[in-house]
């Protein structure tokens, strides 16, 4: 258990994505943080990967077209009516 923070550059860089994704243990995270703090070579990797994630993540701002919600609700409503009429009982059972 000694020297937990003394991970190599290779090890740190290999774990950077999981670290940014929040997919490492608390112990690993603190080792990576310590390494990044001390190592001038690896920090730019972190900056780059973080900026990359932000860039791609900004695509999440886009929304579905407003009419789509209406269409879906109409479709579900029709399904609900079919169910109420008992007509959909045996139909489409194999589709999922």
């Amino acid at each position, binding site marked *: 258990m000694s020297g937990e923070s003394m991970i190599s550059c290779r090890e740190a*860089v*290999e774990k950077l*994505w*999981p670290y940014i*994704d*929040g*997919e490492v243990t608390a112990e690993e995270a603190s080792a990576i943080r310590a390494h990044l703090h001390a190592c001038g070579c690896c920090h*730019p*990797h972190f*900056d*780059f*990967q973080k*900026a*990359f*994630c*932000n*860039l*791609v*993540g*900004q*695509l*999440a701002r*886009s*929304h*579905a*077209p407003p009419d*789509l*919600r*209406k*269409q*879906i*609700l*109409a*479709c*579900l*409503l029709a*399904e*609900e009516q079919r169910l109420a009429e008992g007509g*959909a009982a045996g139909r*489409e059972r194999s*589709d*999922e």
Partner: protein
Amino acid sequence: VVDDEVAVESLRKPGFVEEALPWLDAVYRFALRLTRGNEDRAEDLVQETYLRAYRHWETYTPGTSARSWLFTIARNAFLRGEEQRGRRRETLESELEYQTEALSSVAALDEIRGADPERAFFDSFVDEEVIAAVERLPDEFREAVVLSDIEGLSYAEIADVLNVPIGTVKSRLYRGRRLLGQALHEYAVEMGYLRGVRS
């Protein structure tokens, strides 16, 4: 024309409105990436996804991720549609190969980073360019990148949606990000945002 409120009140399956409907934007974005930006197909896919989800709502476990569940349905519906179109997906090549390559791929990121320390590199892109680059990724990498970097799913959730082990998620994500980084870099050079660093 359906009144939203009336429709919502008429949907009687418990929890569906509260848990499934809020993910409409996310499911649409995922569908758009699956169909490589074909808006009509994406809309059809979302509609089919919600219809299936409604029919099978009883199989959803309350308290688990409704979003992942919906993504899984969307993806299965998409793959079924692709099969019907006679466009079978190519079988994946050895995952081992990806993993080995991933471990030695840090140099590719180095080049990009070195070319622009101020990160103006990233500021130079508009959404359309990034979307185009995402859409050019091979299917298996695109799915992983979209689910992680755009929709923020955990590795475990992505593994569920794609029905693959977590190790495979990691390697596809790593490889997909690397390919995407390279594509964006090439685009930036082509457009004159960056000077090509050819050695």
